[in-house]
Structures are given as C-alpha cells and as structure tokens.
C-alpha cells in the first residue's frame, strides 16, 4: 500500500520509495521522508490531489503522483 491508501489520521511506516529521481529523493530526505520513517496522513486537499502528511513532527504537502510512489506499512 502507499500513502494514498491511508485514511485521515492513519499512522504508518515508510517501507520504500519507488520511481523517484535522486534529486527529488534528497529533497524528500531533507524533510525526513525516507524508509523506516513514521508517517501520519493529516489531510487531503484539492479533491484528493494533494496529501498533507506528518513525518518527524514536520507537516509536508505532496502531490498525489509522488504520494503514490511512497510505499507504507500500517
């Protein structure tokens, strides 16, 4: 499952990141998004096209395309 499969306020752990290029990966990492990071889905906006997640106390807004690439485990 990936981030888009979570429901609001669900907690999960990031398992892997697929199809993400190196530079974007580094930016994700700057914000703490990486394997084994705990993640909470806080909100979805713009008709479920944007996902607001929380990782390590940081609230981050992602596009659906990228959220699909982040595999999580509940």
């Amino acid at each position, binding site marked *: 499952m990936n981030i888009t499969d979570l429901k609001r306020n669900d907690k999960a752990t990031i398992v*892997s*990141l697929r199809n993400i290029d190196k*530079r*974007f*990966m*580094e*930016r*994700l*990492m*700057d*914000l*703490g998004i*990486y*394997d*084994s*990071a705990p993640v909470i889905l*806080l*909100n979805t*906006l*713009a*008709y479920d*096209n*944007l996902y*607001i997640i*929380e990782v*390590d*106390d*940081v*609230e*981050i*807004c*992602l*596009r659906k395309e*990228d959220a699909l690439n982040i595999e999580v485990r509940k």
Partner: protein
Amino acid sequence: MIYLLAGNPNVGKSTFFNFMTQSHVHVGNYSGVTVEKRVHHIKNYEGANLVDLPGTYNVSPSSEDEGVVTYSLLNESYSGIINIIDSTHLKRNLHLTVQLLELGVPTLLVFNLKDALRANGYVVDVEKISNKLRCNAISLSARERNKEDQISISNELKNLRIYKSIELNYHQHIKWGIQRIHDLLRYDTVQVKKKWLALQILEGNEGIFKFLDVTKAEKIRAVVKEVEEKIIEDDVALSLKGAIFNTRREFINDLVDESMIKIEDKEHSKYFNQRIDRILTHPAWGIPIFFAIMLGVYQISFGKFLGVGALFTSFFEYFWDEILVNYLGQGLEFIGVSGFAYGLVIDGIMAGVGGILVFLPQIVVLFFMLALLEGTGYMARVAIVMDRFLSKFGFNGKSIVPMITGFGCTVPAIMATRTIVDKKERMLTILTLPFISCSARLPIYVIFISIFFDKYRAFVMLGIYILGIMITLISAKLLSLSFFKGTGSKFLLEVPPYRIPQFRTIAYQALEKAKRFVKKAGTYILVGSIILWLMSNIGPAGINIETKDSFLSIIAGFVSPIFIPLGFGNWQATSSLFSGFLAKEIVVSSLNILYMGDIAAGFTTLSALTYVVFASLYVPCISTVATIRSETNSRKWTLFSIAYPFVVAYIVALVIRLIFMIFI
C-alpha cells in the same frame, strides 16, 4: 571573534539574529554564489561578530543557497557556531545539529520557540541534551527579546570551548569508507576534521570536491561508489545517503525521547491547522479567498480607498517636489549655478531619482503586507492552492510569491525566487516575471487611459493586467516545452504552522527589502538619469540646444521607423521608450517633456493603445536586467530577458493593431 549562525529554514533565525546583534557591520557576497552575507556585532560582547548563514536542512547542499554553508565551514575563519533549533520540530532540526557537532567545533545550541513548545505542553530538558551531545545549550524564545537571555548567550559564547566531538555508530561499510577517504586526504591541509569531510563526501556533499584536486576526486568517487554498492547489496538502506540518514535518525529519536518532557496534556496545534486549512485551501473557495485577500493587499498598497501606500506617496511627493527640489533649486541659484548644470541636477537627477522614489512608500507597504501574510503561514497555503494551476505552465507552486511581489516591483520578485529549489523552475520563473505588470508601469496606463480611453477606464486597465498575466503563462509554457523540460513536475512543501507574526520582525523584513530595492534601483536610476538628461541636452551643435537636435532624438529618429507598423514611429515616442529602459515611470515624464505637455497630439486612439500594450510588455528596466544577471549568473539568459520581451511586445502590439484595423 567570529561566530556562524546556522539553522534550518523557518526557525526564527532572522529574529534571533536581530535580537543578538546591534549595529550593522557589512553585507558582503559569498564568493561564487549570489547570497548576501550579513555580519553584525554581537551585543554585550566586545569585538565579536555574528555571520548569518542561509537556512539549511543539511550541511551538504541541495540548493545554491545551501552551498554557502559548506563553503563557510571549510573556508571562513570562525571561533564557533551557534546552531538555532526550532524546539517544536526537534526531530527534523537535529539532523543539522548532529552534522555540525560531528565537525568538532565549539558549538552553542539555542533551542528557540520555547513558548510555542510550552503551548503544546512540552519543555526541552536542555541540560540532558547538553550532556549527551557534549556541547553548550540554552533554550529561549527569541521573539520575546528577553535581555537576560541575550546576556546569557553572550556569556555562553565567551566560555565556548571544544569538547570531544560526537561520533555516531554508523554502519561498518560507512566506517570503512570514512577510513579510506581519510587516508586519501592525508596530505591535504583543511581547517576541518578529515573524518568529517570523509563522511560529508559519502553523504554526497559535492561542494567539497571544489576544494580537492581532480585526480584525488576520482579516487574518492570510486570509494563512494563502492560503499554505496555494498550498502544496497546488503540491504542496509535504499542508498548510501539514506543509510547515514537512518543512523542519525535513530540517534535523534533516542535523544528526543529522553529530553522532551511532557508537562501538560494539550491538543496539538496541528488539529487547529487542519480545520483552517480545509477552508483556506478548499478546492472551490481557496482561489477566491486568495484573490480577495490579494485585492485587499493591493488596495491598501496602491489604491485610493483605504490606500495607506498612496497616502504616504502623496506626502513623499510633496516633500520631494515642494521642499527638497524647491530648496535645492533655490540654493543652487543662490550660489550662482544656472543653465546647464542647474538643469542636470534639477531636471535630470532629481526628477529621475524622484520618479522612482515616489513609489517607495507604496512598495514598502506592499512588502510589509506580503511579509505579514508570509509570517502567518498563509503564503504556504497559497502555494498549495495555486500549485495545480501553475504546474500546468511549468511553474512551481512556490512561484506564486514572486509573482505577487512582481505586481509591486520586478526586482524584489526576482530575489524572492530563491526559495524555489529546482533550478530550472527558478529560471523559468525569473525569465517570465517581467511580463507581470509592475507598479512602475502604472503611470503609463493611467496617463494614456485618462487621455484616450476615459470611458473604458476599468476595462482597459484590467485588460492590460490580464494580458501581462497571460503572456507570463504562455511564455512559461513555451519555455517549459523547450529550454526547461520537466519543470512543474515536482512539488514538495513544508507546511508551516499558523503563527501570529511579530510586528518587529515583519517591519524589519519589509525595510530590509526596501533598502535593497533602493540600493539596486537607485544606483542605476541615478546613473541612467544623468546619461539620459545629457543625451537629450547635448547634440552635435553642443549644449543649450532644442531637444529635437539632441543626440537622443537623432538616435531615436534612426530607430523609430521600426515602430511605424505599430503606429508610433516617431522620435518622441521612441526616445521615451529608450528612457523607459532606465525605469518605466520615466516613460511618462519623458513623453511629457518631448511633447511639451501635450501627449494627446502625438497619438491616435489606436496608436495610443498599441503604445500602452508595447510599453507594458517590452524590455524590462535596467535594474531588473541587472538583477536577472546577478541571480541567474548567465549572460545568455540575461540577453534573452532583453530580446524576448521586445519581440513578444512587438508581435502582440502588431496583432492588436491589425485586429482593430480590420474589424473596427
């Protein structure tokens, strides 16, 4: 004594910097990058200075701004580092802290936003952290500007010393890599620990290679590659950087668990955010709310009703024209200056510089309002709301802040693009921003509309602004399909919590931006006004001539035939466009002078329309071009930023003229 101030973005670094320091020392540039360096004296600490580094998540850079941190740590001379930390986001902030402490330089940790953390029901056990990390630490709320806090930080700095640097238990492959690189570097002289350098290299800090010789760099890269392969092969992490990151995170998680003390049960502020967010970023209402807010901002900055900015401008105008210029003129006459020199000072310099300074109050008000919106956290929501729309044209959601600023002035708008991490998206934003109609172009519209289109005032005005926005979007789309492929494809935004901004900080930010604007625009306009005045008052026959015999009119007369298809191929209109290159507002004063106050005589209704359209889109002013040059660091794109708008303006004006000639 020099101390470096390092911290993540948005942790109150500027607030802390202003709180800790007093007089201004200097603003320099870091070599190789275009980020300004602020150095101020530290209060209550004789002879000590604080250097403000750009906000960064990592020592190893992922944007141009962040490269400065590596550069400073390796090359600047300093006695210690102050690391400012957002106590409400410890887990993320401590990644930078760990990297700085691994360096083994005397470091003071400042846990900021103590009050915000307390409001969430927590406190940081500073002593525990300080013992565990073997460094000095203090917690405070910089925005309270408590004098005792300031003194105790100064005292901490005086007693700052090196403890043993922390060493994390990285995976054995990484340890092996560190040792190998360390051996390769054994004959190099650097001012930091080589093991630290080795770890940074493994992490992918490309900035370090700049300071190593090339043959060695290749050997080092081979080691990095080998370690990376082993890490992935043994399934330690998804990448080498990731493996290092995960070790740090474990260390940080333990540290935070031990040192965060819950003192009260409180509802976390994020639930509050969620409720407001759902309204402000609502798919249907989000954009109307944004437009309504922006309308209010522009109304207050530039409008007549509620117009604080316009009010200040009229005071300023009065002061400048009636008092300063008047007395200066009388003074000059008194000491016997007249004729040519008098004209140069009063009609050249004072009129030219005054022309742009008159807009300063409005721009300061705009800056203030935007800083206010930024400070509350609303701008991040705007980026979210606008992301889907803007990404279709190759922009980033974050491009919205420069765009909004661009309605005020293009120079600070271009500077505001620094927050866009992706280089291509940033370039695309910079190159298309000049099409957004800045406030300096407003006088042109106002004059022409009042003379030629009085019945359709609002309609023409709105039309010009919409045209500018459309050209911006179309140009961005074209650029994203040609030179900057793949832009608009990524969006990642840290959503800041809503905060009540502090008046002092906001006012400071606005004034700081205004100062930069005056410095940048002022210099060019001063020089430009002098040149323009001389050009229009000197001719082949010497000085004291009619304007039509001046060098300006001769050159303009030579160029003007190319504007015949647009309907204004005369030297007056052309030289006014020339002068507009110095600053757009000069177009109007120049037209007034050249047509001797009777602009209506020089245009037909249609040629007035094409002139306004052309003037709204053509070549950006010289201050903008200079800013583009320094921000892009590229001669090619600077030339592009001059040539492309000219071509676009010409085509659009021509098309409009043809349409009107055929159909109306």
